[in-house]
C-alpha cells in the first residue's frame, strides 16, 4: 500500500562545522504519486533520498538534522535512526554494488531480498517470475547476476527492491546506466506503479523526470528553487536556465518522442521551443 510522504522544514549538515547540505526542505508527496528531484550535481538529490531511506545516520553518524519526516502514519523528528526497508526502499545509483554476490542466479538474487525479510514463500516462482516479466528480464532468470550489462543489472537491482513491495520507492538516478530502450521500459514500469507505490526519484535526465513525474522538485545547493507540476516547470523553464540546461533538453527530439504518450505537455513544449 502506498504511503503519503511529508517532509517538513528538513535541514541537514554532514557535521556541525559544515554548511547545510539540505536547507529547510518542505514537500508533500501524495500516496501513489511520483515525485522527481532534479538539479545540478551536488544539489542534494542523493542526500535527500538517503535521508528518507534511513541510511544517513549509518553513513554519517556525525550529521546534524532538523525538521520532520512523515511516512504514512509514522513520524520522525529529524531523521530516522534506522533503515526503513521495506517501508521505504532505496535503489542506489551504481547498479553493480547492489548485486549481493552471494547468489548464483538472478532468480535467487531476487529471492535473497525475501529471505532477508523472512518472507520467502513456498513457491517463490509465482511471485518472482511475474515481476521479472514486468521488468522485461525474465529471460535472465537463470543468468549469473554478476555477468549482466549495466542496464540489465539496474533492472535486476530494481526487481530486488520491488519484490519487497515497498510503500515508498526511492530511486537514485535510475537512468544513469540505461540506454534509451531500457529507459522506455523503466518509464513504463514506473507508470505501472502509479497508485500502488509512492515513488521519489532523482535524475539528471530532465526529459525522463518530466515524462513520468506528477511533481517536480528543482534543487540547487540543498534548497528547493521550484516545486510543482512538470507543466508548471516547462512554462517557467527559462527562469532556471542557469541551474539546468533548459535549452538543450527542450531541444532534444528524444524528449518530444518520450512525451508523445503523455497528455497535456505537447503544447507547452512547442511553445517553449518557439514553434507556436
Amino acid at each position, binding site marked *: 500500500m502506498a504511503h503519503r510522504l511529508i517532509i517538513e522544514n528538513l535541514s541537514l549538515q554532514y557535521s556541525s562545522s559544515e554548511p547545510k547540505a539540505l536547507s529547510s526542505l518542505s514537500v508533500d508527496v501524495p500516496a501513489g504519486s511520483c515525485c522527481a528531484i532534479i538539479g545540478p550535481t551536488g544539489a542534494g538529490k542523493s542526500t535527500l533520498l538517503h535521508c528518507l531511506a534511513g541510511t544517513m545516520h549509518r553513513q554519517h553518524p556525525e550529521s546534524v538534522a532538523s525538521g520532520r519526516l512523515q511516512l504514512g502514519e509514522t513520524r520522525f523528528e529529524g531523521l530516522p535512526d534506522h*533503515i526503513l526497508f521495506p517501508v521505504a526502499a532505496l535503489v542506489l545509483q551504481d547498479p553493480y554494488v547492489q548485486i549481493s554476490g552471494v547468489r548464483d542466479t538472478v532468480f535467487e538474487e531476487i529471492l535473497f531480498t525475501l529471505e532477508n525479510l523472512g518472507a520467502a514463500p513456498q513457491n517463490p516462482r509465482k511471485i518472482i517470475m511475474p515481476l521479472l516479466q514486468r521488468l522485461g528480464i525474465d529471460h535472465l532468470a537463470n543468468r549469473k547476476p554478476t555477468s549482466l550489462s549495466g542496464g540489465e543489472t539496474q533492472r535486476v537491482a530494481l526487481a530486488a527492491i520491488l519484490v519487497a513491495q515497498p510503500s515508498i520507492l526511492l530511486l537514485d538516478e535510475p537512468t544513469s546506466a540505461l540506454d534509451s530502450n531500457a529507459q522506455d521500459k523503466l518509464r513504463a514500469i514506473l507508470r505501472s506503479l502509479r497508485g500502488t507505490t509512492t515513488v521519489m526519484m532523482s535524475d539528471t535526465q530532465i526529459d525522463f523526470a518530466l515524462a513520468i513525474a506528477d511533481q517536480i522538485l528543482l534543487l540547487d545547493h540543498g534548497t528547493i528553487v521550484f516545486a510543482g507540476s512538470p507543466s508548471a516547470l516547462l512554462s517557467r523553464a527559462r527562469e532556471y536556465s542557469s541551474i539546468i540546461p533548459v535549452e538543450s533538453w527542450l531541444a532534444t527530439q528524444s524528449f518530444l518522442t518520450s512525451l508523445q504518450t503523455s497528455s497535456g505537455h505537447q503544447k507547452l513544449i512547442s511553445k517553449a521551443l518557439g514553434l507556436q
Partner: protein
Amino acid sequence: MPVRAYLDLPSKLALVFLLWVCAFTLSWTFQVSLCLLLVIARFAIPAFRPLSPRSATAFSKFIVYSISVALLVVCLNALFIKTGGTIATVLGFSFYEDGLLFGLKTASRLILLSFSVLMFFISTPLPVLIGYLQEKGLPPSLVLVLLLTLHFLDQLPRRIHQIFLAQQARGAPVDAGVISRTKALLSILSPLVLASIVESIERGTALELRGFLSRPAADRIPAQIGKQDNLLGICFYFLSLAILLYSIYRWLIA
C-alpha cells in the same frame, strides 16, 4: 557418491583447521610434503579445483610468488643467523646451518598456512560459504564484513589491471619493466585502496538496504551437509586434537 560430496564445506573447514595445526606443530619436512599434497589436490580432487579460470591463475601465480618469498626468507635467515656450521659460501657470503633451518621452518609454515586458506577460498563458492555461516548463526554484521572483505580482495586485481590499462592508454611506460610497474603501482596504491573501500561501503549499504542485517535467524538458508561430511569433518578435528596432544606430550618430555 561423488568425491566432491565427501569434502563439502564443513569438512573443508575442518581440513583447513587440521593444516593450520600441522603448520604450528609438525616438522618443516612434513609441512613441505603437505604443501606438495595440496598442490596435487588442486588438480586431482574435484572439491579443491578452482571455481574459475581466474582463480586457477591466481593460485598458480600465488605458488610462484610464495616460492620466491620462501627462498628469500630462507636465504636471509641463513645469511644473518650466524650460528651452527657454515653450509656454503657464495661470492664471499656465508650461509649458516641454524639460520637455514629456521628459515625453512618459517617459510614452510607460512606457505602451508596461506596455501590451505587460498585453496579453501578458490574452491568454495561464496554463496555456499555465506549460506553456511548464516545457517550456523554467525551474526549478520560479521557475515557482511567477511563478504565485503572477500569482495574487496577479489576486485583489487581487476582494478589494478584497469588502472594499468588506462595508464598505458595515456602512454605511461607501465610495461617497461619491473621497476616501472612497481613505480606505477605505488603511485596508484592509495587512490586504488580508497576507491575499493568506498565501493565496499556502498556495497554494504546496498545490502543493508535489502534488509541483510535484519535477516531473521529462522529463515537462514540451511547449508546442505550430509552425514559423510560430518563424519569426515569430525575425523579431521580428531586428527588435529591428536596432533596437538602429541605435540604437547613431546614438549613435556623434551
